[in-house]
């Protein structure tokens, strides 16, 4: 049985980053992926004359040449080259008015709304715009951004967890570290005196992490918002498949191996620790250390005998709640975005502006809460002349497919897609349906098939008040099941999002590399 220094299970964003960093450190590395492509969520697919982006909305971690963002820096460290395209918008939030809404007005699209907030990049510009929309909110917004300026330094100071010494260091950079970390987004913004309506607009990005204002910690939300607002965002030129292939190349060029269509079906144990894997039910491969980019829920069920699983891992997995699941509709349009009347990259359409009310709506298909993106706003040539591509996203929580039989599935998903499309048509007073040339609809079973996660979530576990990013970071080492087996991906400390997943892989690699050094 051939034995590698490191076996990485799963070539999602976390697994790719982990393998690339291990290869770069000179470790013999085998990356195993059940699918025939790298990236998990970070991929693309072709229908007719369109190539669709399956999941990426925007990367907060793409900065400026003077101030490169977190994702750019991680790609630079790996040596992976990607043609980044910058987006200088943030989001637009549109809340269509209900009958009898007193504060309703007619917006630029001729739609009766209670909120229409198109927010600019830059702390100052963002805060001014917020003040225009909700007088009296400028100061609180600027204070909130002020709190977040040294946040990344504080995160770095937390080190690799396990120790409160990190907290002491973090406090040096951020005197309010403990206050922010232990309070929710709503509590933080209220303490700053931000008017409720401004808080709602300010909280619009909650859905990117899947935790609403009453459960999301103030610290992490501000860190995320900071990334989006400070320098704008970015996206790869050739869909996120470009990012995945760029890392794939680093791994191969560095002498690492990637086996696609190669599913780990069993972990081989020796002396109470993982010592190898079985691939596709037949081929055994040995490993000294393991990095696992598969959700723990399925790892314990599918790859281990129960007797080999540390009991604390079972309790931990059972204590956590599976995060958001998504429904996405991909549309290849035979009209340009100008012809359709699209002016924004991201529009968040919501029946209510309150993040907790939005969260509550997401228990059902389809709640009326969805995001519509037009990639041509950032990459004009991402589709042939005379066309554009749209990407609609809705969110749900829980086992929402209950009661759906295989024979009903096509009708069901077509109905959900139709509801989402009509919601966008109404909220933006535009016509979509007559111009659909290509359509694909992805529901939780689609994500389950490609990502192999519980409920099909791309998001891991809910970043809840009690299981938020900071305690996850501080307890990272004790959260890992064996001293030679580290998890990475959206289930880990920073939760979902490309940047968080890449970070989890880089961190798992770093700990793995250090462990080899200590052994020698």
């Amino acid at each position, binding site marked *: 049985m051939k034995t590698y220094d490191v076996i990485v299970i799963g070539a999602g964003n976390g697994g790719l980053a982990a393998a690339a960093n291990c290869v770069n450190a000179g470790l013999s590395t085998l990356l195993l992926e059940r699918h025939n492509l790298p990236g998990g969520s970070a991929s693309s697919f072709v229908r007719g004359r369109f190539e669709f982006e399956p999941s990426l909305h925007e990367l907060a971690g793409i900065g400026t040449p003077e101030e490169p963002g977190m994702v750019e820096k991680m790609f630079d460290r790996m040596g992976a080259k990607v043609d980044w395209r910058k987006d200088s918008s943030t989001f637009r939030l549109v809340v269509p008015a209900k009958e009898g809404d007193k504060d309703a007005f007619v917006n630029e699209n001729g739609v009766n709304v209670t909120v229409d907030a198109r927010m600019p990049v830059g702390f100052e510009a963002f805060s001014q715009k917020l003040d225009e929309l909700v007088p009296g909110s400028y100061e609180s917004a600027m204070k909130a951004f002020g709190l977040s300026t040294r946040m990344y330094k504080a995160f770095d100071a937390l080190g690799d967890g396990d120790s409160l010494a990190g907290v002491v260091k973090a406090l040096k950079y951020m005197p309010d570290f403990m206050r922010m970390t232990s309070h929710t987004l709503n509590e933080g913004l209220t303490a700053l005196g931000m008017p409720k309506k401004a808080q709602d607009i300010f909280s619009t990005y909650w859905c990117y992490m899947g935790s609403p204002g009453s459960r999301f910690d103030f610290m992490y939300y501000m860190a995320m918002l900071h990334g989006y607002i400070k320098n704008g965002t970015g996206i790869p030129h050739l869909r996120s498949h470009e990012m995945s292939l760029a890392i794939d190349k680093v791994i191969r060029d560095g002498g690492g191996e990637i086996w696609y269509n*190669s599913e780990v079906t069993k972990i081989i144990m020796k002396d109470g620790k993982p010592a190898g894997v079985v691939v596709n039910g037949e081929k055994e491969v040995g490993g000294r250390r393991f990095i696992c980019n598969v959700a723990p829920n399925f790892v314990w069920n599918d790859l281990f005998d129960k007797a080999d699983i540390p009991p604390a891992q079972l309790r931990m997995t059972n204590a956590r709640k599976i995060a958001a699941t998504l429904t996405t509709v991909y549309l290849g349009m035979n009209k340009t975005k100008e012809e359709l009347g699209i002016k924004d990259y991201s529009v968040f359409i919501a029946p209510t502006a309150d993040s907790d009310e939005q969260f509550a709506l997401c228990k059902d298909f389809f709640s009326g809460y969805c995001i519509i993106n037009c990639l041509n706003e950032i990459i004009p040539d991402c589709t042939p002349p005379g066309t554009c591509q749209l990407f609609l996203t809705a969110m749900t929580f829980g086992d929402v497919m209950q009661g759906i039989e295989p024979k009903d599935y096509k009708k069901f998903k077509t109905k959900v897609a139709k509801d989402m499309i009509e919601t966008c048509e109404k909220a933006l007073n535009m016509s979509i349906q007559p111009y659909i040339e290509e359509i694909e609809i992805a529901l939780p079973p689609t994500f389950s098939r490609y990502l192999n996660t*519980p409920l099909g979530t791309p998001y891991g576990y809910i970043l809840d008040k009690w299981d938020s990013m900071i305690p996850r970071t501080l*307890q990272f080492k004790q959260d890992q099941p064996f001293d030679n087996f580290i998890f990475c991906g959206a289930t880990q400390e920073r939760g979902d999002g490309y940047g968080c997943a890449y970070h989890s892989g880089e961190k798992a690699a770093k700990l793995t590399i250090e462990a080899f050094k200590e052994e020698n």
Partner: protein
Amino acid sequence: MASPIKSLDPKRFLPMLGDRQARFNAAPEKLPAGSDRARVLAKALHPKRQYLKITAVTERSSDCRSYTLEPDPDRGTSALAYFSAGKYVSVFETVGGMPVNRAYSISSAPAASLAGKYELTVRRVDDGLMSRHIFDTWEVGRRVEVSAPAGTFEYQPLRDAPFVVGLAGGSGITPFLSMANAIADGDEDFTLCLLYGSRDKENILFKDELDALAARTDKIRVVHVLSDEPAETLPAGMRKGFLTAELIKEFAPQDAPYSVFVCGSQQMYRFVDPEIEKLGLPKKYVRHELFGEFHDPKSLYDYPKDVPETVKITVTVMDVTKTVEGKSTDSVMQILEKNGIGVPARCRSGECGFCHSRLLSGKVYVPAHLEYRRLADEQFGCIHPCCSFPLTDLEINVPPVK
């Protein structure tokens, strides 16, 4: 400077780690749920493999047979994957030591799959390796291995017009037969006017079945178009000739949008595609079934000159590397298969991307009409072996067939 959030108590931080640990400690020590409805549906609709048994063989014409396939629980398949009418399955066989697979449209109704039956209909082609093999070896009781239903040739109400003109040539009737059944069963809701081209009346497949379906609902109409039938023996109601733009216009609605769906042989596409072009329909209203495996790169105008007749391919599958030789007019996939090396494949037409592989060195030719790779693929040296023809010796990395 005073904190702007000094009203928030920092001491709330202190018990956080303990609280988290306490939550973990209080949770049950059982295995977490290993499945959920999303996973159940994903596995039911997209099984890795379906192990089936042939339970009936029906002669459709002198060179065409239908095979009824049912689950083979002995090998782990207890139910068939449900599918949307128009999908195909890939059939996996070994012919003379050579692993091969071909895509065949499911000709039976989606509803029949719930009762445990798929029907595949195969026309025997003289130089068709797989169809000859199937005719020679498939009989009642024979075990068969197929993929999950796949493909994009299906009706989509949010995209397609409510009126579809189906252009079928010969055994290209199979996905339409499934669609017509789905309409009659109430599983699909659109009007299908089938213009079905056959050589002569003896070669019409499923004539009785199609008549019966048209009698069940006014949403289905079938017009037989015979190319070689003498005028004097042409049955009433049938047309003599080919599937032309004129004929389509005659049967399409005059003042409402309609979609055109096409399925047939490559030879049929060469005739019908320019006819469809004449209609000036928006692209969204023209749907094409798979092109099928392409065999003749030399016939294409941009195929380079001076390509060596034989090439060497050094191929790595997982940790095994071999060097094999083949004809440069064969696709990379065919060369590997002829050398006993299986390649993961579904459509064999460039489209599905299932055979996505790495080209490490050397050059390949990809016919423009089969170029469905992702944009970044070309930049990073990824190819679809099913429609890549070697121009030089190659070094490639191919995933295993699992």
